[in-house]
């Protein structure tokens, strides 16, 4: 097999992109820089503008204002067919009248590569996604997961400067989705192509991306590595959208907040005075205590981990995530004491 690494990973800059459809601002001043070879995931609820951003980068939609630049070259007015970007779509997009090999070689044909070179490259790409033996099949003879793997091979065959993935896993069942997600990451690292991955599935985004951008109402709320995004959300939206959070009563004084009787550091952007702290379930521990101020409401077994919901005397529910060995000792109605780990929290008004 030839060296598949493209060495073509280029920096991507989206500068102050705005897209207005009638009265709707689908994008509202989006600015995002992607490093060469980096995989950035855009995450957000439906209608937040993440697909619009990707389509503008692909040249399939036009920004109302703003600039798209790849490798320092302004592509804002360049048509999609001249942008040299590979794309995998949410819907199955293989050409039904072509074999798998012809699908993968299509982009090379458009670039005037001769038949032998096309066949060789298509073979390499199908090897890369583990479908070399399906080269002569048609799309309708493949499963959904296989079709998306061929679509990935087709997008990479042209050695794109940027790889664009528009929710490529959302039509697949859960097991295939996880397998293909891991495969996409493996292939992306192997070929080194700068990649923008759009998804509404936070687990998917956190698992594959070097950095994750969380979008809301056409704006980028925060871009950060997955761990940072999870542990230090920059806004209430990010804190609530990414992962589960308890909203616990808190009193902020200086750089700390009193939460469940314990002082914990507060993150930048927190409110002052009284508010609600966003505390992750895994940051809450539950201690059996006959004199404790809370009672266990439910214990939900999730395999190695369990989720325990406790009720405070004021009626507030607090969810804790514990090892199942620990959680299964608790019974609904038990009196318990809740403790919060001394990790920084975001306090909202």
């Amino acid at each position: 097999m030839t060296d598949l690494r493209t060495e073509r990973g280029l920096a991507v800059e989206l500068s102050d992109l705005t897209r207005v459809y009638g009265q709707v601002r689908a994008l509202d001043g989006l600015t995002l820089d992607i490093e060469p070879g980096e995989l950035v995931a855009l995450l957000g609820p439906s209608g937040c503008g993440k697909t619009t951003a990707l389509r503008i980068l692909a040249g399939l939609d036009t920004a109302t204002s703003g600039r798209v630049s790849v490798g320092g070259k302004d592509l804002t007015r360049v048509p999609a067919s001249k942008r040299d970007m590979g794309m995998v779509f949410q819907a199955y997009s293989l050409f039904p009248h072509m074999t798998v090999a012809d699908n993968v070689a299509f982009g090379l044909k458009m670039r005037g590569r001769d038949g032998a070179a096309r066949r060789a490259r298509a073979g390499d790409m199908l090897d890369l996604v583990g479908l070399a033996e399906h080269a002569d099949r048609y799309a309708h003879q493949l499963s959904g997961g296989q079709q998306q793997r061929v679509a990935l091979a087709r997008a990479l065959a042209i050695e794109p400067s940027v790889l664009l993935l528009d929710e490529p896993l959302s039509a697949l069942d859960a097991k295939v989705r996880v397998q293909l997600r891991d495969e996409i990451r493996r292939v992306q690292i192997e070929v080194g192509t700068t990649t923008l991955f759009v998804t509404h599935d936070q687990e998917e985004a956190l698992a594959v991306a070097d950095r994750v951008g969380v979008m809301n109402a056409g704006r980028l709320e925060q871009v950060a590595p997955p761990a940072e995004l999870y542990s230090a959300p920059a806004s209430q939206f990010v804190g609530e959208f990414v992962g589960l959070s308890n909203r616990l009563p808190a009193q902020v004084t200086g750089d700390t907040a009193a939460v469940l009787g314990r002082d914990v550091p507060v993150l930048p952007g927190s409110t002052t005075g009284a508010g609600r702290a966003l505390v992750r379930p895994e940051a809450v521990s539950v201690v059996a205590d006959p004199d404790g101020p809370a009672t266990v409401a439910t214990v939900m077994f999730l395999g190695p981990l369990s989720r325990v919901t406790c009720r405070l005397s004021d009626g507030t529910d607090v969810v804790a995530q514990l090892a199942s060995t620990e959680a299964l000792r608790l019974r609904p109605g038990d009196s318990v004491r809740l403790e919060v780990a001394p990790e920084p929290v975001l306090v909202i008004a």
Partner: protein
Amino acid sequence: MTPSTGFKVFRVVGLLVFAAYFFVPLLAMFDFSTQRRGSAEGRTWDNWAFMVTDEDLRSSIVASLLLALFTVVLMVALLVPTMVWVRLRVPRARGLIESLCLLPLTIPALVIVVGITNVYSWVTYLLGDSALVLTFAYVVLVLPYSYRAIDAALSAIDAATLSEAARSLGAGWFTVIARIIMPNITSGILGAAFIAVALVLGEYVFASLLHFDTLPVAMAALYKSNGPAAMAAALASMILVAVLLVGLTFLSRDRHKQGASS
């Protein structure tokens, strides 16, 4: 006798009745077209040979076949890119295009002919008085049926995603339409073409009132002087259309097997 057996018998009888309904007139036509003139005994192929030996009838057959071919080519060349473009780029105009294409269905052919008579005096002045100039009128005539066939085929594929995938791989709009969309709506295009051929081969009002000698006009004239020969020509055109239909069915099935229609 079990109910299922009864149903089978009913099905077979029904099939035979319908077959008789369709085939008895055709057999009668064939019988009439092969009879010798007067009280002579036996069968003759002279009336069928008349289609080739009679220069007027032969030229009208050639004109009609060429008209059918040109109508199909022009209809596909106009309609397919327009419909694909509207579907992908200006979907809001789809209703307007559909209304325009269906309009000829609502206007009687006679009214259209009266309306375009003056236009055709210019057309014949500029392009000559060949019957082939009817192509323009026939394209309008077949629009409603062709539109429906192609629209159904386009609705069966995800044209937007396929075209975006092709464009992202470097294909221009011509390539998208010719190499990606058209191969996947072949069954619709073939259906539209078949309907167009059938309509053109049977169209009488336009050709007659605009004074062009096409097969139906020649057959009508011939019927007055040589009924069996006219009958042979009519049966031949029906057989041609039937062969086209069968060919279309097999072609669509083959393409489906290849995955083109999946």
